[in-house]
């Protein structure tokens, strides 16, 4: 029994160690992510970062006073390099006789220059690139038609009308889509097709893309895509619809056509994900793309990353790919309970050792020793029994053990043995009054 207890006692350290290991494992495993993804999407990190991407144009703004004076003179001031256009008749009608002045600047201003613009106090509406802010609110497009007009032709008519209505505390008018497609002529189409056949990439004059985007392979892993990149199209004229024409020319081939900052996809499965990708890119990055002059390569990179992400995101009810069973994920919720259990067991086993040494009155053993010694001396004149001699030898051992501060258990055992020897001797002698139980019944006087 005592052996078992001692084993358990030693075992508590094992429980403590297990608890510590569980705690460490649990803490180290707390690196959970909320990705829902087909494996890990290899697209790059967020590509739109301040400054480093060449999105700033080295524009020199006039001073605040100059701009204020220009606005005083003319309700619409268009600084050189501006790219935004709108249907002036519609906007002028909407403004009516309200005092709404519009300041239009090129995109890609530094933070400092934007602060400078905000100091022009009589500018009701600021148009930086195609990003539009009023005195209280800003507006941005929220559907594919809106983004296409804004980024392909710099058309901000619909946004301006909304903001003018907001400045005049009126209800927002319905969106107006002034964007028109036309079929490209054979002369326009021929060089594009020739370029695409030659090196899968057509960069029209005025477009800023320099080479094949390097993320094309992850966005379209099955087939090499074609890229046709054009500069921002003039406002007010129908835009040649290269996408449809090229899709006819190159069936079953992914084609990305880009006008200005507007990228669109044609080719296999276009209907199932081109809108998703466009919404993903332009709803997240539309404001930055509008206000800054990012190179087309950057916008296209973001677009291709979005294609990749959609490809990996599992949006289309495809069966999930095989995921290996992860025991850690299953075991993790159990660990705190196991930890608590181990701690409880450890504490339970420790209670004995914490409370144990304090128990038992310390004066008992010396008192018993004194009593038994008295009895033994008294009997020594009467008895020559070896039991008495053994008892005396044991009492001597007790004395030594007490002097050397040995364990109480040994002392107690030796005392018990001495007592039983004295009992034997007393019975041999035939004197019941010398039996320790009787002799020591009243204690030592």
């Amino acid at each position: 029994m005592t052996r078992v207890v001692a084993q358990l006692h030693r075992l508590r350290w094992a429980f403590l160690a297990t608890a510590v290991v569980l705690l460490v494992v649990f803490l180290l495993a707390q690196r959970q992510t909320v990705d829902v993804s087909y494996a890990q999407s290899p697209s790059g990190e967020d590509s739109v970062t301040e400054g480093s991407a060449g999105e700033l144009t080295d524009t020199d703004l006039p001073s605040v006073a100059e701009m204020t004076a220009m606005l005083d003179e003319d309700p619409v001031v268009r600084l050189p390099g501006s790219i935004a256009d709108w249907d002036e008749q519609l906007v002028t009608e909407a403004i009516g006789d309200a005092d709404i002045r519009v300041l239009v600047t090129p995109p890609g201003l530094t933070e400092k220059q934007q602060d400078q613009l905000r100091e022009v106090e009589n500018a009701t509406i600021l148009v930086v690139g195609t990003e539009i802010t009023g005195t209280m609110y800003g507006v941005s497009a929220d559907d594919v038609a809106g983004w296409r007009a804004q980024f392909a032709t710099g058309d901000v008519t619909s946004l301006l009308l909304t903001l003018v209505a907001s400045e005049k505390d009126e209800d927002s008018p319905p969106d107006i889509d002034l964007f028109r497609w036309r079929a490209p002529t054979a002369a326009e189409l021929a060089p594009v097709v020739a370029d695409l056949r030659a090196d899968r990439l057509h960069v029209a004059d005025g477009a800023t893309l320099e080479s094949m985007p390097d993320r094309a392979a992850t966005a379209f892993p099955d087939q090499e895509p074609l890229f046709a990149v054009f500069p921002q199209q003039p406002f007010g004229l129908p835009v040649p619809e290269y996408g449809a024409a090229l899709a006819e020319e190159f069936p079953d081939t992914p084609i990305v056509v880009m006008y200005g900052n507007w990228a669109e996809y044609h080719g296999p499965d276009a209907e199932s994900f081109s809108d998703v990708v466009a919404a993903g890119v332009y709803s997240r990055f539309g404001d930055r793309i509008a206000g800054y002059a990012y190179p087309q390569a950057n916008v296209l990179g973001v677009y291709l990353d979005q294609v990749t992400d959609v490809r990996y995101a599992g949006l289309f009810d495809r069966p999930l790919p095989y995921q290996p069973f992860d025991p850690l994920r299953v075991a993790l919720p159990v660990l705190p309970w196991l930890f608590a259990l181990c701690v409880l067991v450890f504490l339970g086993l420790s209670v004995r050792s914490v409370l144990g040494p304090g128990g038992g009155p310390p004066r008992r053993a010396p008192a018993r020793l004194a009593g038994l010694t008295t009895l033994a001396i008294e009997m020594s004149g009467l008895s020559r029994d070896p039991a008495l001699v053994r008892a005396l030898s044991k009492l001597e051992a007790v004395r030594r053990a007490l002097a050397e501060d040995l364990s109480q258990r040994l002392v107690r055992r030796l005392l018990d043995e001495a007592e039983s020897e004295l009992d034997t001797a007393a019975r041999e002698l035939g004197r019941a009054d010398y039996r320790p139980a009787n002799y020591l019944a009243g204690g030592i006087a």
Partner: protein
Amino acid sequence: MIWVWVVGIVLLVVAGFAAAYLPRARARALRQRTAWSAARAAIASAAISRDAVPDDVPEAGDLFARAELLVANGGGVAAAEEAADCAERADRLWREAR
């Protein structure tokens, strides 16, 4: 500054080992002394029983000799317990022989 951490961790580990080890070492020493004390007490008791028996009990004598040999050789707790066990058995044999 990494060495501050290293030294700190080493100190903590050493202190932890020391705090765990020293009381255990002391307890082990105490157990050992206790066991030998018990063994010596048992041998003394057996010697008295032997002297009280007129006849020779060879088995008890062997056990007793073994116990004394163990005490003479010294050793750990196990040796002490073995010695005490031998002495107790010898004691019992001599008492029965009387």
